[in-house]
């Protein structure tokens, strides 16, 4: 009797969910039909046409993220910082439990140390060339964090030095805000591009964009590394 009731309730719920999903699909297609997809208009058109004149950055996406909407990016980095801090606060309170792990595969064990250097170098390459090629601070930082995740998996009791991570994160955030304030005092608007722009395609071009993206790279890398370290080995 009881099991029948449960089954019935389950069925009614599934039908309801199906109707909700159907309605969602209908809304989705009706929104898509309204869009004009083959013409680039408005602000996107402005960005594409004036990117080289305004910023001399080869990558238009980078110049949007760091220059045209740099303030937005600062807020976004703050959200990431808040999430990492919140995670540390939620998981703090008890020391890490030592857990018996199966030892890592020999391949992982011997391969990951030399690979760490290469992975970090590759991450640095990605965020230094953010204004020239598809890449940037967020991607490069994530690649660096992946390298440290590999180390955490390969070595039992591998400790990430929290002092260094905290310093890197704070200095990177400070660099971002300082560059923004320099723009405010020199040119009258926050994050204004006060350095010489150079020529498109060169490493030292696009003014403050590479500086900010390197700072973002360090910040994202250190935050994600700290986040992984906090999540490692908490639960039995």
């Amino acid at each position, binding site marked *: 009797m009881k099991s029948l009731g449960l089954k019935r309730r389950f069925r009614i*719920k*599934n039908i309801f*969910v199906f109707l*909700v*999903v159907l309605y*969602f*699909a209908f809304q*989705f*297609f009706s929104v*898509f039909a309204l*869009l004009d*997809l*083959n013409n*680039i208009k408005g*602000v*996107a058109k402005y*960005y*594409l*046409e004036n*990117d*080289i004149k305004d910023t001399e950055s*080869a*990558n*238009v*996406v980078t110049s*949007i*993220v760091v220059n045209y*909407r740099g303030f*937005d*990016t600062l807020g*976004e980095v703050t*959200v*990431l910082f808040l*999430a*990492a801090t*919140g*995670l540390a606060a*939620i*998981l703090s309170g008890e020391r890490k439990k030592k857990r018996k792990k199966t030892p890592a595969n020999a391949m992982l064990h011997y391969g990951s140390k030399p690979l760490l250097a290469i992975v970090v170098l590759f991450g640095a390459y990605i965020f230094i060339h953010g204004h*020239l*090629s*598809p890449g*940037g601070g*967020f991607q490069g930082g*994530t690649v660096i964090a992946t390298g440290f995740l590999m180390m955490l998996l390969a070595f039992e009791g591998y400790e990430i030095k929290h002092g260094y991570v905290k310093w890197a994160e704070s200095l990177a955030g400070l660099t971002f805000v300082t560059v923004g304030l320099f723009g405010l005092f020199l040119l009258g608007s926050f994050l204004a591009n006060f350095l010489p722009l150079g020529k*498109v*395609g060169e490493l030292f071009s696009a003014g403050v964009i590479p500086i900010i993206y390197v700072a973002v790279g360090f910040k*994202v890398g250190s935050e*994600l590394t700290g*986040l992984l370290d*906090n*999540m490692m080995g*908490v*639960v039995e």
Partner: protein
Amino acid sequence: MKALLMNTHYIVLAGILLLMVIGLFGALTKKNLIKILISLGIVDTGVNLFFITIGYVNGKTAPIFSKSGLTSQNMVDPVPQALVLTAIVIGVAVLALGLSIVIRVYEHYGTLNVSKIKKMRG
């Protein structure tokens, strides 16, 4: 109708819709908290793909002036790409925060089943 079917947007769109529907269905029907979080991650991926698809124009290339011949005429819309770039990172942060809460819930209740947690007191 023929023009509508010829448009590659609609093929990608079907995939996006499938991703979103799978994620939504999972989030609404699954009992395991980690499975619910995975479903939310799938919806997140669908939304990101949707943004990129809106910005895509048939036959145009990435908005990077990497070769001398490229002009702004043959590039896709860069704004959705910039938005998705930040949305991915936020998605990772939110997922990590959610997982940390799941860890605490598991420590407290000893189960990940939502309906069992609901019945418990304290």
